[in-house]
């Protein structure tokens, strides 16, 4: 009782300083995480509105709600915002920023000022790109394929490219910060194989961020150079090669898919362990699966180009490597599932998200096997099959993981519990709405519906109507957590330091944590998820 009163009196990271300056000039990783949460939530809603408008347009076979030109700008805005301003920063900059120092027993990240600078870069890039989208839009698609983007598009390609170029540096610096933090700031006794799997997956993500993002930056600069100075790089009219652009673009953008989903996998590892009260089954295999995904992800970019004029033999090599990268993902799914076996499985909201993630990621991964199969890819690439596939990975996977993690750590971040029943209902709404939106798109894709079409043959309208109906439900599902998590921030019941009775270091500090996380640097003597060893502290058994 006395301890509790004292905990309430000790200022936490939210109350230690007051005023807007204390937020905008903060170097506290936890506050920076909140700045990112605010920013990416804004971008997510913006991207979501673009998606909703597209789905409404697709209710009828003709382009009647918006003009085709507007539709093209909508899907470009949706892709650009969701990829670079939501999915890529989503988990690393929010949960990663908040939790990595806590999980490794550090007071902050290795370079706190650089961390704040990354956020400002993110906002600068975001504003520039938003300006491009608001002042007339961009119609190239998020993929910026040449020579359309360099010679034929009359929209704000250069502005958008510069915005994304800048935001790339935010990614690189965040990755650099995490790598250094994980290498240098681990608490005494916290060896690599005692680290939570969330750290392993964020480490793998950071490596990809640091190595792949510069290639994107260079590629975007080349677009600018070709558009402005007429230097022939990609345009065949200037002696360039348009397919070269695709190689460079996917050399970044395929690994980027793993930037989006690896952190989510880390979250799911934490969730299945905490809500089964067990170590993740096959810890080392899951850890190395993250690393091997990061490595192989650099060797599979050609699978985006099977109909773009690759030679038959290089296509075969890329197909082979794409199957290879599926193996560690399969290993993870099996290990998560096995973690539940003979566990003590609770059905709290974060666990619902984790189970949802495993199911949807499995479907997304398996349809990836179809796309890696050369002959099938010829038919389904550039159709709704691909759209459905990557939304199962990035929304069914990455976003479900993000929301699961947000619910799991919200008591730690805010110090308060969210309304559990409402949260469960919205998790189910999201799951249903998601499947209703995207499963029909697999069928549409196999039927041959090309992507990026504002109008389509009337015989496909029924499936589009189901998809739009699903998207509406999904939209409601996403609004609910926004409302009740905000509500809980102020009015939720106090959470206490460890509401889930989980093992991680982050649960051993008060909620919300004090400004410098640990009063005394912790000394680690146990592996992660050692429920048996922490039996007494957690009052289990």
């Amino acid at each position, binding site marked *: 009782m006395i301890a509790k009163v004292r905990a309430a009196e000790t200022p936490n990271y939210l109350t230690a300083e007051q005023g807007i300056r204390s937020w905008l000039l903060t170097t506290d990783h936890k506050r920076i995480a909140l700045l990112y949460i605010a920013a990416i939530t804004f971008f997510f809603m913006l991207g979501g509105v673009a998606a909703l408008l597209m789905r409404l347009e697709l209710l009828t076979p003709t382009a009647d709600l918006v003009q085709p030109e507007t539709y*093209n700008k909508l899907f470009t805005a949706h892709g650009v915002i969701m990829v670079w301003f939501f999915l890529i920063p989503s988990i690393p900059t929010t949960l990663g920023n908040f939790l990595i120092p806590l999980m490794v027993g550090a007071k902050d990240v290795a370079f706190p000022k650089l961390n704040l600078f990354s956020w400002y870069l993110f906002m600068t890039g975001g504003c520039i790109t938003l300006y491009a989208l608001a002042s007339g839009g961009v119609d190239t698609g998020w993929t910026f*394929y040449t*020579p359309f983007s360099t010679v*034929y598009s009359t929209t704000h390609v250069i502005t958008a490219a510069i915005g994304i170029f800048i935001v790339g540096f935010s990614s690189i610096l965040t990755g650099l910060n995490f790598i250094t933090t994980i290498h240098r700031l681990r608490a005494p006794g916290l060896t690599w194989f005692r680290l939570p799997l969330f750290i392993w997956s964020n480490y793998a993500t950071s490596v990809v961020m640091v190595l792949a993002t510069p290639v994107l930056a260079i590629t975007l600069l080349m677009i600018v150079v070709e558009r402005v100075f007429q230097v022939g790089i990609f345009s065949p009219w200037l002696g360039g090669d348009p397919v070269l652009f695709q190689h460079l673009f996917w050399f970044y953008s395929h690994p980027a898919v793993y930037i989006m989903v690896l952190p989510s996998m880390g979250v799911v590892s934490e969730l299945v362990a905490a809500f089964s009260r067990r*170590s993740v089954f096959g*810890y080392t295999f899951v850890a190395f699966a993250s690393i091997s995904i990061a490595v192989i992800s650099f060797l599979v970019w050609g699978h985006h180009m099977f109909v773009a004029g690759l030679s038959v033999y290089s296509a075969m090599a890329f197909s082979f490597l794409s199957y290879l990268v599926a193996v560690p993902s399969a290993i993870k799914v099996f290990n998560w*599932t096995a973690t539940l076996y003979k*566990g003590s499985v609770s059905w709290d909201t974060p666990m619902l998200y984790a189970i949802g993630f495993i199911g949807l990621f499995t479907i997304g991964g398996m349809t990836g096997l179809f796309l890696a199969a050369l002959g*099938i890819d010829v038919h389904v690439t550039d159709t709704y099959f691909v759209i459905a596939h990557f939304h199962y990975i990035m929304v069914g996977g990455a976003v479900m993981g993000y929301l699961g993690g947000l619910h799991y750590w919200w008591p730690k971040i805010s110090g308060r519990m969210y309304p559990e029943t409402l949260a469960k209902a919205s998790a189910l709404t999201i799951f249903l709405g998601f499947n209703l939106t995207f499963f029909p798109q697999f069928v549409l894709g196999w039927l041959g519906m090309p992507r990026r079409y504002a109008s389509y043959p009337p015989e496909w309208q029924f499936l589009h109507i189901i998809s739009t109906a699903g998207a509406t439900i999904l939209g409601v599902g996403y609004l609910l957590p926004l409302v009740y998590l905000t509500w809980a921030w102020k009015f939720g019941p106090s959470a206490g330091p460890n509401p889930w009775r989980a093992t991680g270091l982050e649960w051993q500090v008060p909620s919300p944590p004090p400004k410098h996380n640990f009063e005394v640097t912790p000394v680690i003597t146990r592996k992660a998820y050692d429920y048996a060893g922490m039996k007494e502290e957690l009052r289990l058994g």
Partner: protein
Amino acid sequence: MNSLDLLPPTASTYANQLNDFFWVMVAVCAVVATAIAIFLIYCAVRYHRKDPDELPEQIRGDNKLEITWTVVPAIIFMGMFGWGAKTYFDVEQPPVNSMNIYVVAEQWMWKIQHPDGIREINTLHVPIDTPVRLTMISQDVIHDFFVPAFRIKQDVLPRRYMTIWFQATKAGKYHLFCAEYCGAKHAGMIGWVYAMNPADYQQWVDRGGGEGSLASTGEKLFHQFGCANCHRYEGHGPGPDLRGLYGHQVTLATGVTRIADQTYLRDCIMGDKGGPVAGFRDHIMPTFQGQLSEEQLLAVISYIQAMGPATGTQTPSSAGTTLDDYGRQPGIAEPGATSTAGTKPDSR
């Protein structure tokens, strides 16, 4: 709203082949996914936490299991890879006796040229049971020729010929889409493929033909643009004799060898990456960039393609010394390519 079809029409040999593969994949994945889902739900229900203080048995892993679920999926994946590669190999290799049709894509239409001179826009008429090879090029951005009923798709690039082939099996009218985003009216770059019974097709050809074959158009252009001044039949010209050139290996002055295919000929004419051919030291061929449209280029190339071999009887003094002057090896031509300008393809 129209009737609900959940499966695309299957109207080519390749579509039949791919259907089998696709449905086997669906079956394998559905079985595995269902098994995972059932096990997951079973565990979540069977081991549902009853007591809030419950501490379950601590199991950290099992190496045998790990190896099993690494190796078994890997083997299954290799099977998928092999099957996928085989189908791809088939769709990328047109049979030698294919009928040739040329496709020029531009924002936002498909322009089709048949060898016998028929042109169409946004429609393509083909006979069933005949392998058809499309040679395609774009005038502007990247497009993509996609016929779902045939399960074929191929990006169409500027300045580079791409080919794809199919053999329709069922008469009917099928969607043609542009599948690579190409700008404002991308969704309007659509058309129809009409697969017709041979008799109907012949009727259609008889009705539509008249302008003369593509190769004869090419022949006219060949003279009109002065190609014939240098590339003379007798082989006396400053340029190489083009007879029998098509499909054979060419050694350039740089020592690089290339196959004289459509892309090579296009490169030479447009001054991109072609000659000079070894032995022709004076590289004086002008570029025809901006002078010939993509359609005209295709006509010229199909004329060169249709030229007889250099050893043919129609031209005097073709072999021996004169050819040596220009570094050309006699006997490079291959017998069989005897059709002259204006001859219809064999498949007709």
